[in-house]
């Protein structure tokens, strides 16, 4: 059903949200065209496909756009249900997975953005929220191989782009991931052994350079 239609991912290489979509598509071994957007000059296709937010990532499937990374990941999971399920089969497990993926959005990536966008003096609250968020996630992971248990799942996909961004957050937030969240660092290394993750995450050094450049542009020095 989903096979024959054209699939395009509008993305920006550094976006953790875009990385989620790439990982999900790779897990499903689905072929697609990857279009890197210049966010300073958004393409007509992007503006047409996401008129509400004008943001990446957008997955365009047979000309029909899907927006918002976790919506895209769930769509990919449901459009290719016959392989690599990202959500568990039981309703309660699915609710828990959605809860933690939403938590990752609010407490990790939204917070993380504040760490590099705000001046040092304004960061205090964000840093506290971020490091507390890391600890809660470690509690949720426990001794499991992945957040999905033995299977790499929805929460893993939602969180693993952190591995490309940890260095940046550490640097601007003045903390050490290894000290604050050693279990997550170990989990991240396990995830990186998966081809889908390794091929979708850029070099953390490049992300850091990119953010330094963005900060200069925003006059954050």
């Amino acid at each position, binding site marked *: 059903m989903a096979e024959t239609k054209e699939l395009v991912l509008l993305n920006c290489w550094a976006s953790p949200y875009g990385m989620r979509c790439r990982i999900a598509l790779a897990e499903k071994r689905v072929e697609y065209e990857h279009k890197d957007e210049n966010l300073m000059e958004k393409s007509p296709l992007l503006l047409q496909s996401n008129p*509400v937010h004008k943001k990446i990532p957008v997955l365009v*499937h047979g000309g*029909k756009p*899907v*927006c*918002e990374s976790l*919506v*895209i990941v*769930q*769509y990919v999971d*449901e*459009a290719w249900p016959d392989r690599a399920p990202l959500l568990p089969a039981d*309703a*309660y497990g*699915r*609710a*828990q997975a*959605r*809860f933690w993926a*939403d*938590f990752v959005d609010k407490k990790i990536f939204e917070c993380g953005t504040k760490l590099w966008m705000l001046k040092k003096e304004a960061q205090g609250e964000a840093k506290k929220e971020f490091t507390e968020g890391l600890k*809660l996630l470690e509690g949720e992971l426990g001794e499991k191989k992945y957040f999905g248990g033995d299977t790499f799942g929805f929460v893993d996909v939602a969180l693993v782009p952190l591995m490309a961004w940890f260095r940046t957050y550490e640097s601007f937030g003045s903390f050490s991931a290894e000290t604050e969240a050693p279990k997550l660092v170990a989990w991240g290394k396990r995830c990186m052994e998966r081809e889908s993750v390794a091929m979708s995450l850029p070099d953390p050094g490049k992300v850091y350079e990119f953010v330094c450049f963005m900060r200069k542009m925003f006059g954050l020095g």
Partner: protein
Amino acid sequence: MAAAEGIEVKLIGAWPSPFVLRARIALNLKGVEYEFLQEKFGEKSELLLRANPVYKKIPVLLHHGKPICESMIIVEYVDEAWPAAGRAILPADPYERALHRFWASYIDDKLNPSGAALSKTQTEEAKVEAAGQVIAGLKLLEEAFGRLSKGKGFFGGDDIGYVDIALGCFLGWLKVMEKTSGVKFIDEEKMPLLAGWAERFCAHEAVKAVMPEPERLEAFARKRAASAKAPPANQNTF
């Protein structure tokens, strides 16, 4: 009736909360019997703190003692845990589901915060700007209604669905805001689809028994403002 022996469903909440209302509507749509545990204002129960240690907020659904948190996650859980009961809250088609999830996200990430911002404005100028933001957001939903309803009466088509619940829960508070701000948010001439939908939603079997009357919400808001000296907001904490 979907309640069977051994099924134990409780909802921790408070009657003014639009987020709690979402969960109640979903349970009603599925005909699920549940015990409503009303939180005391200004005080969080031990049960709530245990059931939702991460956010300490209502609503929390307890099914066989296992907690589910975050209102739209609860709605989706209710849809999946009672698949044969009532009618499906989310459509079957993956693309349609993605559209519903997108608009529910929009309502929570953009529309509701713009409403909360409006309720906090202090100057006339700020109020006008904030009201403009809310109306702009509702206009997008007016357009989305056309696409999602496919000419039927609800975002979910023939009956209430995921986006109806996500948006409709705020209608009571919207009426209160219209009164206090003097701004008409869902104007029949400018937003005819939403205006018609709002009436149908509030009159629906699954909604009318649990949706608080605007007068009652207004009295509650006045009482809170008087005691806290802060403007009331659509929060799910009390």
